[in-house]
């Protein structure tokens, strides 16, 4: 089942633009939702599979967005001591790659620093990191234009040598790009989780001291997970920058991290499909609420739906619905480990 159903969802999403009659507003909502869903999937790697609640995830997303935008726009900064760095614009696709690398490096750095602490301390150190990055983006005006926003970011151009290139200007093109990147991330996470490394991650989540005693290197495992997770978030940020074509320090807002966490936990953390379903539900809920109620009321309903899901299905929508649809045999524990989060192959 875990093999077939994502495929069905993928097929559905791939066909959706045809059914939407190319409605640009809904496509736009799906694209931004898709980008955030990639962010949520990457967050799930940390939050769901290693159990480390990072509330600074938006930092990697934003770093990806800024790196990609600056690579493709060019910049000129004075670093002090008379050193000037001048960068001529490069193709946006290179920006995407650099965004992934830069975000991954930041993930490594933050992983090295913050995995010394656990639990609430970890939560807060990650929030702090994101806020510091936001304030740097806001105040380093020479590089980032600060609050004046980076505008005129070019659309992504994909090309293969000898085959020509395509600049992704239309909604439908961007939609399929996001879908492709999302699918790729999904497959990578699925592979990773099913590997030895994935078992090490889950081992740490379930029982850290036991995992340590069987020779799992906690800091290294967590750091690798953080690097991959941050790199994926950076990729999502790059997509965001080139799709929206403007970014300002508001991309680092704490509220966006909260949205991603809601997507992961609401959908089902530690499951492969959870962030995808959660992403679609919580990404599109505001779109669905928009025409029917006052703006303030939309937020209230958003909050109430979140609370309701956590009360009714504390493990998230995907395990919750799967649990509902599975006729429960007597004697089987209703919660706990009855539903395996993922298939474990080795």
């Amino acid at each position: 089942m875990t093999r077939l159903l994502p495929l069905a969802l993928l097929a559905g999403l791939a066909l959706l633009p045809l059914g939407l009659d190319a409605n640009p507003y809904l496509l736009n909502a799906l694209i931004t939702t898709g980008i955030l869903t990639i962010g949520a999937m990457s967050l799930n790697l940390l939050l769901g599979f290693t159990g480390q609640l990072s509330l600074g995830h938006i930092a990697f997303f934003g770093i990806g967005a800024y790196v990609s935008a600056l690579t493709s726009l060019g910049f000129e900064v004075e670093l002090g001591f008379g050193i000037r760095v001048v960068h001529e614009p490069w193709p946006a696709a290179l920006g995407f790659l650099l965004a992934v690398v830069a975000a991954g490096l930041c993930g490594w750095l933050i992983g090295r620093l913050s995995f010394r602490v656990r639990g609430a301390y970890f939560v807060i150190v990650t929030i702090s990191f994101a806020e510091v990055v936001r304030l740097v983006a806001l105040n380093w005006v020479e590089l980032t234009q600060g609050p004046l926003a980076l505008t005129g970011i070019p659309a992504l151009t994909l090309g293969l040598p000898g085959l020509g290139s395509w600049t992704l200007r239309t909604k439908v093109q961007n939609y399929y790009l996001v879908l492709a990147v999302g699918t790729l991330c999904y497959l990578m996470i699925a592979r990773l989780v099913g590997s030895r490394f994935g078992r090490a991650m889950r081992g740490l989540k379930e029982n850290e001291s036991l995992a340590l005693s069987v020779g799992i290197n906690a800091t290294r495992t967590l750091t690798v997970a953080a690097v991959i997770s941050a790199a994926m978030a950076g990729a999502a940020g790059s997509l965001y920058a080139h799709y929206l074509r403007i970014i300002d320090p508001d991309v680092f807002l704490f509220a966006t991290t909260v949205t991603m966490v809601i997507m992961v936990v609401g959908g089902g953390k530690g499951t492969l499909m959870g962030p995808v379903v959660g992403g679609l539900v919580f990404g599109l809920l505001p779109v669905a609420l928009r025409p029917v109620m006052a703006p303030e009321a939309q937020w209230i309903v958003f909050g109430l739906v979140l609370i309701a899901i956590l009360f009714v299905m504390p493990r998230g929508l995907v395990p919750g619905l799967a649990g509902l649809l599975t006729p429960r045999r007597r004697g089987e524990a209703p919660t706990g480990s009855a539903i395996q989060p993922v298939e474990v192959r080795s």
Partner: protein
Amino acid sequence: MRKPTLYPAMMSSLALALTLASGPARADAGASGAGPIRIGVNEPLTGPFAASGTYVVNGAKIAADEINAQGGVLGRKIELVIEDNKSNPTEAAAVAEKLITSDKTPVMMGAWGSSLTLAVMPKLADYETPMLVETSSSGKITTTGNPYVFRISPPSALEAEAFAPMVGKIGLKKVDFIVINNDWGRGAAADFTKMLKDKGVAVGLVETMDQGAQDMSAQLSKLKGSDADTIMITAAVDQLTLLFKQMSALGLKKRIITTGGSQNPDQIIAQAGGAADGTLHLTTFLPWYPDRTPNPKATTYFIEEWKKRGFQFAGVTESFRGYDGIRTIAQAIAKAGSTEAAQIKAAFWAVDFTGLNGQIRFAKSGPAGRESGQSKPDVYLIRIESGRVVMPEL
């Protein structure tokens, strides 16, 4: 363990949600046909700018009702399609997309803050739909070459230019700045600095405060120790109130001049009390002296109508922009004689009438061939004295 029903069910509910979200299809209502002419309004109704965005929308509604009472435009009523951009640039772009493609509005007004407006601008070019910018003040909006942008609020460079003749009369010698740390504040500090230096006035510190920051004692203590005679401030009314209260608490007594057009002097008087006495403000609207505004009749009507609807008088310094904005759009539609976006865009260049704060008439701004429209409103210097707004004689 086969559970084939789960995901198809999810897919169909997803499709259902999307159908619901797209709302009833009214494709013909905006662009053609006999229904009302739809005008998109993209404003922050929740989030940090909720108060200002709501004021602008309420002003816009007054204009729409007035126009409809007089028979509408092109023999049809106008209908405002109001959407909340949540004070968030991503959302502002999404809202523009929705207004243009799903509500089929051929022209829009928005999006209050500069970063919100900047985020919308690529969409205008994509869909070749014009937007009237009512509040944003960043210079970038009309200088980047987006021919779909028509702005009635003054960018800070225009404000500085209007202030230039007053500099000598007030007797400025050295100026410090404290500005909100966004495009608006930083832009104002840069433009006023340039103008002041040209006039031979020295510029000292430029302090910033974060949007939403409440305690500025640290910055003010620093300004207190400086040898400048004047502090220029760019911020919205809430932070101005806080600044005045905290200045008074610190015993900081210097000449204060505020810029940016979101000062709302009545709210300052009500909330800062005596702490605001003697402060000077550059505003673009004079609701306290309707007779001295460019269009006394319209100003009086607008203020009466605002009060009749039970809104606080203090809101008019924001809401008049919504009112003027919709009237500008209505005139553009009338001049176009059409509800096609392209014709309306062309007709903006022919708009010419006396708004609440001066002649609304668009001049070209930005790179040749892709100019944006910029109207040049009046700028007034007012002073708060013993809880009243007065116009100092210069």
